[in-house]
């Protein structure tokens, strides 16, 4: 029973580490989102004839 008193704080610490992972910035997702927005904002430029939209929306 005594071991529980060691395991419990350890578990709490490990759990808080998990929560930390959760608030890490999702860099890859942000890059994807940025590309999507940039494409839409700049699509009016003369040399991008709007051929590049269809696949972007489908990616999850």
């Amino acid at each position, binding site marked *: 029973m005594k071991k529980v008193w060691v395991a419990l704080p350890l578990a709490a610490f490990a759990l808080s580490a998990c929560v930390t992972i*959760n608030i*890490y910035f999702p860099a890859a*997702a942000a890059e994807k989102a940025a590309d999507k927005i940039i494409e839409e904002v700049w699509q009016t430029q003369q040399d991008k004839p709007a051929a590049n939209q269809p696949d972007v929306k489908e990616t999850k």
Partner: protein
Amino acid sequence: MNAVLKFLVALVALTAALNVFAAADLEVNTPGVNAIKQSMQARHAQLAGHYTSGAVGLTADGLIALRDAGAVPLAQRQAVNALVAAENNDRNALYAEIANVNGHPEWQAEIRSTFAQRWIQRAQPGWWVQSGGAWRQK
């Protein structure tokens, strides 16, 4: 001991579940984001010429700046300054909005730097971009 083992297994499962959540996409399809996007899209028609002439360049902090005022006729300078200011307002609002709608206002700086890299990466050849504090032409 058995209970501790069970607890650890549950912990691993929980960690895995949280990791999946962390890998989720950023939500950018909201009315707020779309409104800013459309405003920027409309403005781009006016800005594109100034990117090409080198009057306006893309900065390292995800904004734009009047780089070479001499490339703009004096009569138009005021208008270009207004365009740059309006664009930067929208860009700042965009980064804040994306961070807020995803429930992490503290991500704003990282979203900004991600955008900064992508704007520069995707800039047209001939446009001016800021890197390492200096301007260079793509």
